[in-house]
């Protein structure tokens, strides 16, 4: 487990790792969470380090329309994770097929571009220590 944890933290751009799943704050079954946190991880999510040194932000994912609801809604996400990475992660989590498109919205109405970083979105739209994102499945793009 410790080995997996290290690899997740050292390769944050590897979306196949699903690192959005590590250290979810309020869920019993965590994915790939190890006991000792390597120095680069800083404190566990439950602590409150200074805002500017906090590596991860808390994201709350809400489904729109008839999109399946995720059992785990709260995730700790690396600031540098992009929207595209998050989309890939949610699609895998919900087991959507490749032809199904998933959109993510801030303020329930605006789709940030795929390269937008979650950290930036948190700074602009976060409140109460978390970023609320709505996601919606659509067949729009075939």
């Amino acid at each position, binding site marked *: 487990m410790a080995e997996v944890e290290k690899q997740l933290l050292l390769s944050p751009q590897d979306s196949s790792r699903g690192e959005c799943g590590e250290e979810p704050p309020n869920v019993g079954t965590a994915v790939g969470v190890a006991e000792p946190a390597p120095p680069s991880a800083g404190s566990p999510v439950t602590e409150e380090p200074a805002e500017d040194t906090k590596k991860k932000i808390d994201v709350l994912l809400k489904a*729109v*329309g*008839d*999109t399946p609801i995720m059992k785990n809604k709260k995730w700790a996400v690396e600031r540098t994770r992009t929207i*595209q990475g998050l*989309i890939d992660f949610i699609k895998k989590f919900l087991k959507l097929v*490749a*032809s199904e*498109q998933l*959109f993510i*919205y*801030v*303020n*329930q*109405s*605006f*789709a*940030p*571009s*795929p*390269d*937008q970083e979650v950290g*930036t*979105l948190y700074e*602009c*739209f976060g409140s109460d220590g978390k970023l609320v994102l*709505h996601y*919606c499945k*659509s*067949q*729009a*793009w*075939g």
Partner: protein
Amino acid sequence: MSPPETGSRRRRGAVLSAMSLNLDSEDDFCLEENRFKQYCAEFIKHSQQIGDDWEWKSIKDFPDGYMSKTHFQMKNGNTSLIFKDSTKESDDQILTHVEEALDDSQVAGICATSEVIRYEYHVLYSSSYQVPVLYFRACFLDGRPLTLDEIWEGVHECYRARLLEGPWDTITQQEHPLLGQPFFVLHPCRTNEFMAPVLANSRRENRNINYITSWLSIVGPVVGLNLPLSYAKLVSEQNTKAD
């Protein structure tokens, strides 16, 4: 949203509502042309505030018009070097920061004018689909237009595989309805489908949204057009004031 214009549409909408559990019929979210123009006006107003270069273009002697924006981008989709349109009166060319990862050969490539592409985006209203439509064209600085293959290369990786799979929402080349020149078009046939959940949600939550802002934020990135986050914040401020 505005009420349906004709009696038959209202009846059809009522029947659909009665027949299905889903009360949010797609018909409820069609965009009227006047609303289209209003949303565009609000959008452009914000664009002017943040210097995003969108303009409304009218056609002489016609009531129709469209939103237009031109920007420059590197061929490989590297947008770290963005030049303002030199034909505009306002500013001198502004060079934004260059990514540090670039090595000398890449910098030399960037300086070559053949690598810079001029994109022109137009937002028009489609009466037949009752939705906005994104038209665009692209050419190199020497005037050579991009081929369809080159346009495909510019589609964000996030969407490329799915667009190639799909038979409907594709990029096709059509004559611009108002200018009569060849443009690429992002086909609007599925616009209602992906807009409906967003609009239904906003209605349920009693939030005002700008249809054009939401729509463009979704379709724009497919063809290299990214809206600054500022547009999303504008909506949020309006809703806060309304609360």
